[in-house]
């Protein structure tokens, strides 16, 4: 494992806390001095239709293969599986290469929790 410090951003942002103050003064005239840090990038997930450098396939009448499988897996599994599990189901459906192969890929993942869609609730 190789770790290096790179020159770049600190990865956090300082946001101003809004605060409602009950006082004789008009709230619009008061400013809150409290600040707090937050991650500049968090809770993202990108799901790409293929691995880098490789093509993705599309059927002229049924649409893109990746989109078709994605829809099917959401329909079948979003009731019991969180989002990353649903995405893994999609990947598994492509595991054995067909005549035209592609492997959907999860990128830029910074979700810190499970995302359950709970359809119908």
């Amino acid at each position, binding site marked *: 494992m190789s770790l290096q410090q790179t020159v770049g951003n600190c990865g956090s942002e300082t946001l101003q806390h809004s605060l409602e103050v009950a006082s004789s003064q008009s709230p619009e005239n008061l400013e809150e001095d409290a600040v707090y840090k937050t991650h500049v990038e968090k809770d993202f997930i990108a799901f790409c239709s293929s691995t880098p450098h490789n093509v993705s*396939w599309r059927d002229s009448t049924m649409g893109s293969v990746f989109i078709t499988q994605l829809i099917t897996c959401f329909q079948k599994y979003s009731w019991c599986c969180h989002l990353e599990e649903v995405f893994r189901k999609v990947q598994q459906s492509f595991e054995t290469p067909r005549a035209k192969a592609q492997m959907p890929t999860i990128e830029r993942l910074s979700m810190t929790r499970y995302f359950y869609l709970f359809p119908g609730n």
Partner: protein
Amino acid sequence: MKGDPCIAHLEISDWKCTPLAVKLLSDPQAVPVWGNPAMPTSSGSEGSVKLCSLDEAKRIWKEKSTEIYPIMDKSSLTCLTLIICNEEFDSLSKRVGAEVDIIGMATLLQNLGYKVDVKRNLTASDMTTELEAFSRRQEHKTSDSTFLVFMSHGIREGICGKKYSGQVPDVLQLNELVKMLNSKNCPNLKDKPKVIIIQACRGENCGMVLVKDSVRASKNISSPTPGDFEDDAIKKAQIEKDFIAFCSSTSDNRFLLDMISWWGLSIQKLTTTHYRLDSCVKR
């Protein structure tokens, strides 16, 4: 760039177009904006999402409440999604079949409780403008998540805008896309799942390699020994599969040197106490 490979027919799962599809297909120029999401239909396997029962939802919540993204009251939610689909280009081939993708994804997202906005045939600059406007939508304050769907031709560097050609670098990169929705530029979506779906090529390679099948010796063969023979059979394999990369920080951001020991020791401790690697990643 030659454009998305497009084949005549594929054996795929039984997703069917909904009546919504009929309406849209009759007017290809329409830019539909779905209103309040329709209630999901009852559990079925064709063209609809299987619902999660209240008991199942309670069971999952009880089991993992501290590890699940917070659920907000549906009656007050205003969840938005944006679909950007480029079907026609100035120089590249038309993406025949893209309309089916639009209808499929829009229907799915509506059934999952999102209000869907569809934009078509944009340059990278137009896509940036739409994303900036989307990030400023006030409805994100009372939403719990968002989906963004991009469907277009693509290259290694990113998603092609409608003007892309060898001489015109009309490309939207994932990095820029994420930046527009991060905590700084879209504070209303802070701490909420932001799901990006990208249907596009990422190069021109086929994604496949031919590998040799291994020989399995049969116990019934007495001689000669299996090592004397080589199998000529070959099979296809995905060129890239079963990887995971766990980086110490998000793109463009640095990792403080004094955190190295903590991070490294955490990974070591988790893996030596018999956790699966993907569980370690989540922790």
